[in-house]
């Protein structure tokens, strides 16, 4: 029972590192941005397990939410002007 948060943290650590590797190595920029959002998302669950709900909420709403949205808006503008996808 007391091991559950520990195992969850371990899983999240694996997932964060995998998503970060995807973000760095993926071929398409869209995938990279999504993976970065996912890293922030898992970081926020990790903050919750570290007993920091305030930080978890901030990371979820700002770090994972608005940052990803800003990226997609800029990418939309760049694509509209004929910029390469990669």
């Amino acid at each position: 029972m007391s091991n559950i948060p520990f195992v969850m943290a371990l899983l999240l650590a694996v997932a964060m590192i995998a998503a970060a590797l995807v973000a760095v190595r993926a071929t398409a920029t869209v995938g990279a941005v999504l993976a970065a959002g996912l890293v922030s998302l898992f970081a926020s669950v990790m903050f919750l397990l570290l007993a920091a709900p305030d930080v978890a909420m901030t990371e979820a709403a700002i770090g994972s939410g608005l940052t990803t949205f800003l990226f997609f808006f800029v990418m939309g503008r760049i694509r509209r002007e004929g910029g390469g996808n990669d």
Partner: protein
Amino acid sequence: MVEIILTLAAVCVGLAFLLALYRFVIGPQTVDRVIGFDVLTIISITGIVLAALLAQRVVYLDVALVYALLSFLGVIVVARYLEGGQ
């Protein structure tokens, strides 16, 4: 008794998490990654509810609400981007 069942539930969540993460990592298209993102967010909500149950703190549930909002908005932003521009 309850503890054993909760541990089993946590195991199921962990397995589901790993499977969805695998789908996210292998792709192959961006749409598949977005689906993986969506399902991972929702599995994270379940994880947050479990964490709140284990820590006996009701305040953690606010973060789950932010997550529900975020999974919706994130998927819609990416979908609108993938639809293509003018």
